[in-house]
């Protein structure tokens, strides 16, 4: 298969999106369709630029990202710590099994009303939910990764008479790192999704909230602009994490588990 064939397939993929955008533009413009739900792609672009210029886009993005990142930082760290404990101490893992399995299935959004009660609207509400959501994949992946460490490595640690602290930092964590990074990718994606979800559902800040406002104030162009922007954000975060993974862990194992996690 030559490069020409590969290029041909590339172009075919663009047919559908381009056709849809063009069709939308034509439909709205030619029919003079004035709707509360549809806007021409050109109008959407204008709305996006307007939001960029008057600062709403950036402030909303900052709010969403701040909550996502903060929640991710706390939740992921917590998850890794718990996963490490459960991975290394089988007894603790087994004793905590019922408790964890009882709490884990609770949908993060179900905690929104509780967090709403405790924190009211704002950053802390969102961060709390993101923490709960990102905690679990981090914990599970870390636990699995650590359990999967070849017993040989632990024998080496014993032979070298490493202290528990040294053992964790010099052997356990480096060995589990590729899979933990995959968990980070997954949790990062989840953090954005959950943040937006909380904003759409209940919060007064962020991109999700702005989208709801645009919808209820009948500004479909702004709503769609924010929608596309959120998608772009999600795509950028995924791409950035994938790139980081390729740079940091150029091994096929991480890639394989990464593909499955995607």
């Amino acid at each position, binding site marked *: 298969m030559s490069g020409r064939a590969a290029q041909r397939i590339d172009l075919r993929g663009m047919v559908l999106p381009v056709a849809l955008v063009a069709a939308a533009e034509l439909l709205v413009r030619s029919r003079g369709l004035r709707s509360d*739900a549809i806007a021409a792609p050109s109008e959407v672009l204008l709305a996006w630029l307007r939001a960029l210029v008057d600062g709403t886009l950036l402030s909303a993005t900052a709010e969403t990202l701040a909550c996502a990142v903060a929640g991710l930082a706390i939740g992921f760290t917590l998850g890794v710590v718990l996963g490490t404990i459960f991975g290394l101490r089988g007894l603790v893992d087994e004793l905590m*099994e*019922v408790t964890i399995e009882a709490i884990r299935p609770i949908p993060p959004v179900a905690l929104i009303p509780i967090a709403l009660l405790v924190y009211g609207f704002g950053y802390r509400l969102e961060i709390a939910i993101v923490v709960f959501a990102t905690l679990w994949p981090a914990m599970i992946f870390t636990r699995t990764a650590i359990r999967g460490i070849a017993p040989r490595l632990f024998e080496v640690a014993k032979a070298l008479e490493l202290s528990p602290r040294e053992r964790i930092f010099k052997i356990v964590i480096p060995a589990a790192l590729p899979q933990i990074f995959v968990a980070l990718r997954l949790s990062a994606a989840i953090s954005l*999704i959950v943040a937006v979800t909380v904003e759409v559902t209940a919060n007064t800040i962020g991109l999700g909230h702005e989208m709801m406002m645009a919808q209820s104030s009948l500004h479909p162009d702004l709503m*769609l602009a924010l929608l596309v922007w*959120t998608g772009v954000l*999600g795509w950028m975060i995924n791409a950035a994490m994938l790139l980081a993974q390729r740079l940091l862990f150029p091994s096929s194992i991480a890639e394989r588990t990464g593909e499955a996690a995607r």
Partner: protein
Amino acid sequence: MRRARLATLAASFLVAVGFVLLWQAIADARLVSPVFLPGPDRAWSALVDGFQNGTLIQKWTGTLERMVYGWLLASALGICVGALIGISQAARAYLSTTIELVRPLPASAAIPVAIAFLGLSESMVLSVIAFGAVWPTLLATVHGFSTVHPRLYEVATALGMSRLAVIRKIALPHSMPDILAALRLSLTIALILSVVGEMLASRDGLGSWILLAARSFRSQDLFAGVILLGVTGFVSAMLLNLVEAWLLRWRSEGRR
């Protein structure tokens, strides 16, 4: 070995009970305001009351129905489109870019658009659930199809099997492990979006119920609802695990 497993499970259960007792102690000592944290006793009685007078059953069924219908719709769509992409080079060429573009979009971000088109209706919630829950199954089907060993396709060609037969008898069974794992994930997504949809559109279900309970400071009802949602998540995952174990018994029996 089974007895040891039962023993650890029992011990684990006792630990969980311990946490519940701790919870009760904190609530009794009013270390946290009862407005935020009802004791397990109050949550339990709210649960019992809710079932006895039927409200909780009604709300629960609402959520369950929404979740299951949305999930079934998403799964059917995901498998069909995934199979199409898996089996047809042309379909893959035309559709894969669009899919890659739409995939990173959080389903909840699509909610305002869905509301714009469908209002605060049942179909809005269902379409949002379907939109969010379709991805894992779709991707798993495509991935599964792509990993079928070429040898099996050669056998199929030699036998003169039709494309449909190849999908039904070779590609789909081969992809079952991936698809089942994806179905579990999409069920979780369906539950989440179902709750979100209920909260937003005030549809009859646990989502709207717990939001209302929070707004009226009825924390025991709130906790009862959250517990029910946790149970829903747990039981649905377990049911799927059972289905998976039964469907994939050729794998476990094959372990020699």
